[in-house]
């Protein structure tokens, strides 16, 4: 199997309000196509870890490799470019741009990448929405969609550039059980049928149980997985 994510001895400390070592020598590897959930009590450092491996947070020691490429030490601009191409995000609070339609929201990362023309981007975005059964809402303003619908659009957006990894921060945390199930099934299907690597942080044990692999964290260390 191909390794898509590898971390070597990640350490991070917070200094406000007082010094606190939130991650202690965290090393792990994730294979291509794995559906991984990171679990643990709040404050155990799981979200911090997610933001480190998603390259948004660069204030740490240790090394991170994504797709065999070392991302530690890249400039902010290089990281932005890298995220655009290799990482898709799904957050707890859907975080769509409210002034834009569902389709535009999905298109924006693709337009930023600049690999496809505008009409190609539009076609691809529409395809992703269709795959998520959201094609009827494509031209609706995202602020007019329900929570579950917004999260599905967010998943379509995460998929648009065919990223190496999809990162989810409590992707079902803000949804009712029906919508939670729908979103989980979508993610599961992605990993199964498309070989998409997915890493999510969750404190929903039910959700975690159904994933391929569980990484359990406690006090800044991986205790299981």
């Amino acid at each position, binding site marked *: 199997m191909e390794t898509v994510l590898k971390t070597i001895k990640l350490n991070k400390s917070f200094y406000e309000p007082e010094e606190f070592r939130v991650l202690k020598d965290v090393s792990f590897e994730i294979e291509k196509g794995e559906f991984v959930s990171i679990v643990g009590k709040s404050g155990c450092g799981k979200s911090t870890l997610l933001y480190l491996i998603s390259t948004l947070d660069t204030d740490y020691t240790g090394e991170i490799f994504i797709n065999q490429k070392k991302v530690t030490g890249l400039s902010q601009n290089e990281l932005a470019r890298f995220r655009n191409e290799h990482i898709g995000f799904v957050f707890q609070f859907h975080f769509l*741009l409210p002034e834009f339609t569902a389709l535009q929201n999905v298109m924006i990362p693709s337009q930023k990448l600049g690999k496809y023309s*505008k009409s190609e981007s539009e076609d691809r975005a529409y395809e992703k929405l269709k795959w998520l059964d959201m094609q009827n809402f494509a031209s609706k303003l995202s602020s007019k969609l329900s929570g579950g619908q917004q999260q599905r659009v967010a998943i379509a957006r995460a998929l648009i550039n065919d990223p190496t990894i999809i990162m989810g921060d409590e992707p079902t945390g803000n949804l009712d059980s029906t919508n939670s199930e729908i979103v989980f099934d979508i993610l599961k299907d992605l990993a199964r049928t498309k070989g998409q690597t997915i890493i999510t942080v969750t404190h929903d044990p039910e959700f975690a149980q159904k994933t391929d692999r569980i990484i359990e964290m406690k006090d800044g260390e991986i205790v299981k997985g």
Partner: protein
Amino acid sequence: MLSVNFEIAKTHLLAKPKQTLIAMLGVTFGIGMYILMISFMQGFNEFLQDTLLSSTPDVRLYNDIKTDFTHSILDEISDTSKVLNVVHHPKPKDITPNIKSSALIIGDLKKDDRVIAVSPILSTQVFYVSGPVQINGTLSGVNILEESQLTGLNSKMKTGKIENLLTIDNGILMGHGLANKLNVRVGDIVTLATPTGNSMRFRIVGTFQFGVGSLDNIKCYVNLSKVQQLLGKDNQYVTDIGIKLKDYDLATDISKEFAGRYGYKADDWKTTNASAMVSILIRNVMTFVVSFTLLVVAGFGIYNIMSMTIQNKLKDIAILKAQGFSSSDVRQIFLTQSVTIGVFGALTGLLLGFIMSSGVYNLPFPKNDFISITHFPVVFHTKHYLFGMGFGVITTFIAGLMPSIKAGKIDPVAILRG
């Protein structure tokens, strides 16, 4: 194809049309008022320059007679370190105020290639008499064609032509205001009396109007030889030499040179019209101060609105950054909004300024004796509009820059984690 940053900026602007419009109106009024003020002030300045300044020569050479008793001819022949010369009750000699060897000076000036025209002038105080009415004024004896080159009298004629002076014996060109006071018109006869008691009759062949009361109400032109005749002087006798230069901005330096070369006093047009020049300067400074203030206020408005917008869009900025938009992309998105507001605000401001200026241009000017204009003087200069545009865009750019830089620096992790 529009870049995605530009599209996002556009969507943001259109999503809140009211807020965008208000930000724009700030710039619109700022630029509009700037255009109105500069057009009007500049119009008034140009009008003044056109009337007051064009009626005075660029350089005027004349015999400045002083009764100066500080030096005595005795000082030249005695050793003043040992002897103190005291003259009791000095009395000035009666000297003629003319320019000696004027023909030579004029000939010399005409050879100078910085000079366009030279006009010998003989000015004197006279009484204009028409029946029972007697009015004090000044009479200038000139070679009318040369004088016209200096003052543009040609274009200031209300009735008649300047050439009439050459064809009609004893012709006189009279100020329009003066003609009204004397109740005379072209073809009528007036009698001119000098302080020394001579008098002569002239026939009015034309009236002129400079638009300045101090000239139109007191001044007349006749041929140089007629004034010489009236005063009983020879045909070399002139009191002033008016000089028109190719570049009137050099008048100050050239007047000093001429004064030194010919030994007579030489005033440039700036000295002659010092008070007018000061008022022009004050108006210019005032215009710029007020316009600048207006635009700075508009700039603060934009700064406020952009800061608020960015505060409301922290989440959006975080999500854009997570998706691969760099700090400079975010900066560009918000700066584009600010500059777009600036460009459209400035454009509508120029239009508003133009409409208001046109309105003022069509207002009738209150009638008065000193300035003869029928409507407010307003100019429409392209450079004012270009400057307004540039200033509007630059102000909004600077106003948008600080909030945009702040937006670029936002740490997405802090926002996304809540």
